[in-house]
């Protein structure tokens, strides 16, 4: 019996370590830099802080699936192009000091930027973009493909 109690206590101590181990340990909240002089986002700041991911999901479906591209803000009635790449990043131009800082802090990794292009870094931060001079058509040279491609 005493060994069971001791075992349970050891287990509880170890299991709850992350909670009491970090007590009083203050992690500084991330400092976010937007890189714009614009004072107001498309909706209230509080809403954007808590629900921007839901808004972006709704925007995505509206644009891609319903063909609706313009967002009429409830806040100020202004019209916005519903586009992560062409509207959001025009103000939030410093992705690494805005999106990334907070996402790293709360340990989430949304995959937006796997396809959407970071306005500053572009698609290939390591290598400079190569110029595409001519389309590398598989038919170029001989004129017509006879390879059975449909």
């Amino acid at each position, binding site marked *: 019996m005493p060994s069971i109690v001791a075992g349970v206590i050891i287990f509880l101590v170890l299991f709850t370590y992350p909670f009491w181990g970090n007590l009083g340990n203050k992690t500084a909240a991330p400092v976010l830099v937007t890189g714009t002089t614009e004072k107001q986002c*498309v*909706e209230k700041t509080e*809403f954007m802080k*808590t*629900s921007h991911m*839901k*808004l972006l999901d*709704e*925007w*995505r479906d*509206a*644009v*891609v*699936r*319903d*063909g*609706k*591209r*313009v*967002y*009429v*803000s*409830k*806040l100020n009635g202004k019209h916005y*192009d*519903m586009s992560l*790449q*062409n509207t959001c990043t025009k103000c939030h131009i410093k992705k690494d000091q805005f999106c990334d800082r907070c996402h790293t802090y709360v340990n989430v990794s949304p*995959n937006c930027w*796997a*396809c*959407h*292009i970071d*306005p500053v870094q*572009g*698609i*290939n931060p390591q*290598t400079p*973009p*190569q*110029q*595409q*001079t*001519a*389309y*590398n*058509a*598989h*038919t*170029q040279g001989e*004129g*017509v*493909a*006879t*390879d*059975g*491609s*449909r």
Partner: protein
Amino acid sequence: MDRDRRDFLKVAGLSALAIGAAPHLACAADDMPGEAIPSPKALTAKRWGMIVDIRKCSKATSERKCVDCVVACNNTHNVPSFDSKQHEVKWIWQTGLENAFPGEENRFLDEYITDTLKGTPIMVLCNHCDNPPCVRVCPVQATFRRSDGIVMQDQHRCIGCRFCMAACPYGARSLNWVDPRPKIGQVNKEYPTRTRGVVEKCTFCFSRLSVGVIPACVESCKEKALIFGDVDDPNSEIRQILRTQPTIRRKPHLGTRPQVYYIL
């Protein structure tokens, strides 16, 4: 405590209802506060369609190996250019006449093809079928047919299963086997790229249409060999041409009802 079966069921039922409704209520509160509307500048149609006039096209291809439409499309949509055919990604591309129109080999068409259209590449793209087999097989509705006839591809939903590629009889769909980003030449920062593991295709430039611009390939064609318009509008340019010129479509016997027409 005195509780009969009836009271218990009442409480259980109400609890179940509350638990079921809670996420919906919470969700409704967080829905987007504003409203989504189509752009007033958007080009709209009852049924988008296209004509490819191979006579005009072949003149440009024989004179200057013209691939203007392909370059314009690829640059607009960040389409990667892989050297290997295995990894190839195609939105609009050139193929041989016998590949574009198998089953059209009547004796005299053959003569026309061997003499007049000798070696002419045919521009092919997604046919935006009225009865699209790709849409029927997609298990996640990543590809769907819009009310204006555009067969759309939602990259956010695509799981890369390639059922659509197997279903499409025109080979108009390509999977990104590897990360396409290093193979994109000129990057258009206004349009996203794709990522590894999703299927992509021509979308009739839905994003350009939504801001009032015609598709990139049509705009780039100096020969005016690509005609884009509303095939359900009897007064449209495309219908004028369909009325006065003989046109054929790719593999019509399959019943997909393609909406890209060819003048040979």
